């Protein structure tokens, strides 16, 4: 029976109501939100930043909100966060290695090898090595910032990968490269569970989302006034 990496059961907050999902190892789930804030609220609730009004959140088998903060943070060491969240005063190479080096689960040599392997998947790897890694996040395009988030996950080898609005507001080629990198990450052992957040309506014919072959897709409901 596959391990359940994250689950929420009948969770309600100020921005969504009665959300239920269950994400198993190696699977991909898509959560469609009606706004960026709603999506962030969902991620915050799932990862222990904002206690829900009702319901239970379990991460890696643990009831998240019953744990002390130190144990919650220790669990988050196994979670990769992509789609943003780069630290503005760190260069890209510092950003992509930050969580993997902060949590002493891998040696610096292992982290470096994983980073080189991940960057090796990119068609413009020379450009990444010479121009993008030594740059600050502000100087990168939106696509490159999101790719850096995925590379950061590659260095960490997380059990759960949360991709926050990874493919939104991008053009075809950029989306294709991010999807390829995501697929490559999913082939790693042990395969991570992937939660992709997407802005819009689930029924709007998102061919990109369907091409990812998600195991499930849910749309968050707004709370009734």
């Amino acid at each position, binding site marked *: 029976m596959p391990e359940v990496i994250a689950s929420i059961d009948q969770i309600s907050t100020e921005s969504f109501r009665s959300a239920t999902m269950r994400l198993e190892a190696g699977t991909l789930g898509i959560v469609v939100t009606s706004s960026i804030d709603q999506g962030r609220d969902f991620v915050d609730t799932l990862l222990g*930043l904002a206690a829900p009004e009702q319901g239970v959140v379990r991460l890696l088998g643990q009831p998240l909100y019953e744990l002390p903060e130190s144990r919650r943070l220790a669990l988050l060491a196994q979670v990769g*966060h992509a789609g943003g969240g780069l630290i503005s005063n760190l260069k890209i190479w510092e950003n992509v290695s930050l969580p993997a080096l*902060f949590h002493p689960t891998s040696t610096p040599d292992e982290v470096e090898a994983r980073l080189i392997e991940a960057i090796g998947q990119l068609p413009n790897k020379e450009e990444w090595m010479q121009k993008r890694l030594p740059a600050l996040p502000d100087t990168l395009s939106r696509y490159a910032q999101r790719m850096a988030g995925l590379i950061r996950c590659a260095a960490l080898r997380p059990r759960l990968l949360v991709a926050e609005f990874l493919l939104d507001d991008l053009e075809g080629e950029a989306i294709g490269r991010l999807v390829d990198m995501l697929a490559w990450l999913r082939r790693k052992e042990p395969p991570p569970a992937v939660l992709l957040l997407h802005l819009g309506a689930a029924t709007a014919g998102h061919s990109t989302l369907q091409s990812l072959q998600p195991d499930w897709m849910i749309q968050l409901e707004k709370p009734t006034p």
Partner: protein
Amino acid sequence: MRASHTHVLGSISSFFRLTAGIVVHAITHLDALRRRPVMAVTYKQVYFTGIQALLPAAFAAVAIGFIMETQMRGLLGSGIELNVKMLKLVVLREFAPLFTAFIVLGRSGAAIASELAAMKVQGEIRSLYLMGIDPGEYLLVPRVVGCAVAVPVLTFYFQAIVAGMGPALASVFVEIDLGPYYQALFASITLQELLVSAAKSICFGLVIAAAACSSGIYVPPSRIWIPQAAELAVIRGFLLLLATDAVFALLTL
């Protein structure tokens, strides 16, 4: 009237609690320095607060040493003993630590506060948390430790330049017999005085970092608060430095 007094007192008490809390948090989480990224930020903080301040501190030290020396000659005459005593008590013991702290507060304190406020506004503190990184360990510990290390070293550097260059430069304009002057100065400095100066400077470093961190990290998440965080850090830090200096003055009576 009473309500506004209560509000002001409440704000002051809240600021003191937050600032003291940051110092206590940093001291009780020193083991975070074993993590490579935390140590890297600490090195950067020492570099920015200490190494990059060497030049402005040197200029200020030369100027103060020269001004004090020439003014003291005018006031006290050419007697070596009295001049050395004044230089030691006023400049080395009081002025140098405080002036160095003001330089650090103006550079690093304002920078730390605006940097942390910007990180908060841009959602980077949330990002750190989502990566399982305790913002207290990653952001506060390196800044507090970095300032607590850099300020005493910078103060010693400042004192050395004031004591060394001040009389030397002043001797071009007023009559100073440098050999006996330096001999009397260095003979009069005791280990206890150096230790008190170091302890005071460490406290100044802690105060500057804690005031800056609390001003930066507890601002509302709005862009307009970024410059205000820097301003608050400087004003609060200035008042706290004077209060800390007063405490040391009482303790070393």
